[in-house]
């Protein structure tokens, strides 16, 4: 049972345990909700109508529907493309590159660079969505400042290149987190190692490839783990920016799930999408954790 090695707390264990009860209830509710979603995914529970009161237990019907109908698989693909380019290539790649470039650099505007990418990160999702919406509109800054001077026609980028805009907006938004993490990680790399490689005649690319990347392997894997999990389930920025459109071009899994559950009203099917999403993220996480542990062997 609950014990303590601290003499002064021996008599206080009970009041302390009582004080913890509200938080424990909240945590249990959280777990209970997750279980409830699993249960719902095996029913045909609906938002409205008869099935909102008397849902049927339908076994794996919802999960079979996931793979036999187009919507879900198309959405998995969109989410994967979005995550790969915006989180893995964009945020993690640019964040790492920036951290290396700015470490010990005497670039006078270093703090401006840091503030610039931090602003993207700190701005609320909906503000970022509004700014990129205005930017990409047919009389927005990208058209007026870049495309028109170059002689291109006015184009509503959110209609023509929606997925690209969403990816760039998310890189703009999220790079700071990776940058901060890598910046802190680089502090732990000793200068001597880099200098030794330099003395041995390794050029910048070789130093990066054979010295720095192996040293940072664990941190890169950790960073990839976090940004992948977040980006895979990201909702607000994309939803506010495109609503999943035009058509279904930017309908990532979280938006697909939200629409199926609350617009179409199929709560059971929506739950199955949510659970499938968690399974995908879980598999990816296990992969990354393996990668980061290989190093110690």
């Amino acid at each position: 049972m609950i014990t303590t090695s601290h003499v002064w707390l021996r008599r206080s264990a009970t009041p302390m345990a009582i004080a913890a009860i509200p938080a424990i209830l909240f945590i249990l509710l959280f777990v209970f909700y997750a279980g409830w979603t699993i249960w719902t995914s095996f029913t045909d529970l609906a938002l409205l109508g008869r099935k909102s009161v008397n849902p049927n237990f339908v076994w794996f019907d919802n999960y079979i529907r996931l793979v036999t109908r187009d919507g879900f698989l198309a959405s998995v693909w969109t989410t994967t493309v979005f995550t790969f380019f915006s989180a893995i290539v964009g945020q993690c790649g640019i964040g790492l590159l920036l951290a290396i470039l700015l470490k010990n650099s005497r670039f006078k505007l270093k703090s401006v660079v840091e503030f610039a990418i931090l602003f993207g990160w700190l701005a609320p999702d909906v503000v970022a969505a509004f700014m990129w919406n205005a930017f990409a509109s047919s009389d927005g800054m990208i058209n007026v400042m870049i495309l028109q001077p170059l002689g291109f026609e006015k184009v509503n980028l959110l209609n023509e290149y929606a997925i690209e805009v969403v990816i760039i907006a998310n890189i703009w938004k999220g790079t700071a987190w990776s940058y901060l993490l890598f910046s802190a990680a680089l502090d732990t790399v000793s200068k001597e190692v880099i200098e030794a490689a330099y003395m041995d005649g390794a050029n910048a690319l070789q130093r990066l490839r054979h010295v720095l990347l192996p040293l940072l392997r664990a941190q890169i894997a950790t960073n990839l783990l976090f940004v992948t999990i977040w980006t895979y389930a990201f909702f607000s920025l994309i939803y506010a920016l495109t609503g999943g459109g035009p058509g279904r071009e930017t309908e990532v899994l979280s938006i697909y799930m939200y629409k199926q559950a609350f617009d179409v009203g199929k709560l059971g099917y929506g739950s199955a999408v949510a659970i499938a999403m968690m399974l995908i993220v879980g598999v990816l996480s296990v992969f990354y954790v393996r990668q980061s542990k290989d190093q110690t062997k």
Partner: protein
Amino acid sequence: MTANLKKSPAQSVSTNVLLAMLIIVWLSPLSWLMMTSVNPNPSGGFAVPTSLTFDHFLTAMSGTSLRQFLNSLLIAFSAATLTTILAALAAYPFSRLNIPYKNTILWSLALLRILPSTAIIIPVFLTGRALGLLNTGGVVLVLTLMNLPFAILLLKNFFDTIPPELEEAGYMEGATLRQGLMYIVLPLSRAGLAVIWFMAFTSAWNEFLFPFLMLRSDQAFPMAVGLYAAFGQYGATDYGFLTAYSIIYTAPAIAVYFMLKRNLTTGFAGVGVKG
């Protein structure tokens, strides 16, 4: 990098050009936001205003949008305070007592932390509808629920760093549990509690999905949903009002970050090292 690692002039020039371009790309949304918010003739394009006006800010600070600002404050303040109090009450015993399956519980808290909102949103909606909690109070409770696992984890680690000898000394001098907590533990954990409070505040301040799902009238919306409703619905976008609104909405999040910068950076280092 260091004195030994001199770059060729061409290399450092190209690096600087690259960084300068990066600044331009990253700051152009911000500069557009600033310029448009004080421009009497706002547009989606980039224009340096010829005269200044603060009318847009006045509009954004009155009527429905002021109401939404206050809603955001109320939601974020209540959720942050509730999260901090509940987390502190649970984290202290967690740090000091030997609880069975402690490590398992810690791991489950970490897992809950990465669970996406979509995993619980349907039950949240169903209970909210059944209990009449599709209102501000319900949003506060849900955001507390979402923040709590991480808050407990962080505070538990924080309490672990406070040496128990201090409390023991207090006990020897005859201090009760309440006195020990009030005069020894609480003053020492002020920084940790502040970090938790501000992190919960920022995350509730930014939250879009739950208030979007749970609130139905623009009088009840926090700023995230208010801004979305304003630029999502109308054909002709009022850029002046929306940019001013965005700046008012963004400012607290940035202010909080710079107030806490040092503590947060330490936290990041921890993430990188622990894995």
